[in-house]
């Protein structure tokens, strides 16, 4: 580099060159890159190579995978070449199933614990006729025996 150069020449930068090709630099940066291309043959050559490569890649036909290849990626952990491929969706699905199972097991255990340790609330069948008789017996003992007990001679229709 000569002493009279107006600025130091920066080494070729793929990202900056790619952005230049894609017209994604602002005016100042674009002028700088243009100056580099004029001043440095390495920059000019590098930009040509990058442009050609992009053209080649974009011109390639879309390659279809062999039949069953994608399915094999989902069902097998290993590719035909032996490399390990992780299907994240499948992993998440398995993890969800394991968590669901764990929660179900915990819930079942808790329900069993409640059933065994905590007494269940029994259903009661009040014996109304007996309750009425005992009540009236108390009324008879503390008030008047005749008017207290005579109602028990009627058909109350309470069953027990």
């Amino acid at each position, binding site marked *: 580099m000569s002493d009279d150069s107006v600025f130091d020449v920066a080494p070729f930068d793929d990202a900056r060159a790619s952005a230049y090709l894609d017209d994604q630099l602002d005016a100042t940066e674009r002028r700088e890159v243009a100056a580099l291309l004029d001043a440095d043959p390495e920059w000019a050559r590098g930009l040509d190579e990058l442009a050609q490569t992009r053209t080649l890649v974009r011109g390639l036909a879309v390659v279809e995978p062999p039949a069953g290849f994608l399915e094999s990626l989902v069902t097998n952990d290993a590719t035909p070449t032996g490399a390990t491929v992780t299907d994240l969706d499948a992993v998440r699905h398995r993890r969800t199933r394991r968590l669901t199972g764990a929660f179900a097991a915990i819930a079942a255990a808790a329900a069993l614990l409640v059933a065994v340790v905590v007494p269940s609330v029994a259903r009661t069948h*009040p014996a*109304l006729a007996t*309750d009425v008789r005992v009540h009236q017996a108390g009324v*008879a*003992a503390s008030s008047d025996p005749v008017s207290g007990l005579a109602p028990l001679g009627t058909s109350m229709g309470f069953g027990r």
Partner: protein
Amino acid sequence: MTDRRRTGVLLRAVGIALLAVGAVAVPGRAADSNPADDLLDRARHAVRNLEFHGTVRIWWRDAKGGQNQTVAVAAVGGELQIAGGKVLEDSGRSWVAQAGGWQTLWADANDTKDANAPNLARKYTVIRRAGPMVVQRSTTMLVIRRGGHDVEQIEFDRVTGIVLGRDRFDVTGAPTYRMEFVTLTGVRVRRGQAAVPKIDAEAPGRVRAAPADTARALTGGFVLVDARRMNASETQLRYSDGVFEASVFAQSGALDWSSLPAGGSDVRYGSVRARRYRSAAGTVMVWQAGDRTLTCVTDARDDDALGIVESLSRSSDSDWTTVVRFVTGPFSWR
């Protein structure tokens, strides 16, 4: 009439007269003595010491309207026999005939007014006046009033003290219940002592003390009179306002509504749903409070019944837990 027969009639008359005079002197609770207590003490004394045969007619109002039934009553040898002896009473103890024998309803020979019952004057006014003729016998009527309406009228035989008639009224003053003798014969001084059934070993009985957390007072001036054990899973809490009693039977467990007999109607007391029945014995209400089933039997007016249900439903679960544990605990009663 021969001299011997005349002497017998005279002796019987003197006996009844002496009994009547003596009955008035039955010791009451001097501090809380009032006309109602004195007259009811005398009525109990008369049933225990006289003999008679009679028929009472009971009228009450239920969901179908007014109902009428007659029931035979007899006092023989100190024993009161209801419906031909299907129900027996002797000095406070009582039994009912069952298929397998006698079921003891009340095991305590304490035929006196509950000592813990409040004085009725706190809630009611009492008027004593001449009553109507009942089975051709003159009566003394006790009128119990509240808020300008009669709530109860009791007609006592002037000579013997036997209760010959009893009426109850609703909030509006309309009658809800009437019991009256329609026949009464063979009134005489008691002779001998009739045999009575045994007291069941598992008969309901009073506990030494009510659970500490039991509601001691309910809306409407009802106070706890005593707590009784019905069986291994049920307790009876008895409340009184000085005139009416309310028994609350508490069981642990959810109410099986489908097990209740037909004939009741669903009513709401505030937020509480209850099944209510009307019978000759008064009002029966069943409802669920928390995980307990409560049954209230009372002859009190509906406004008082409402207060009882509401105040019991407000009791906390911990209160009822204590009550249930109390009666189901192995060393907690008797």
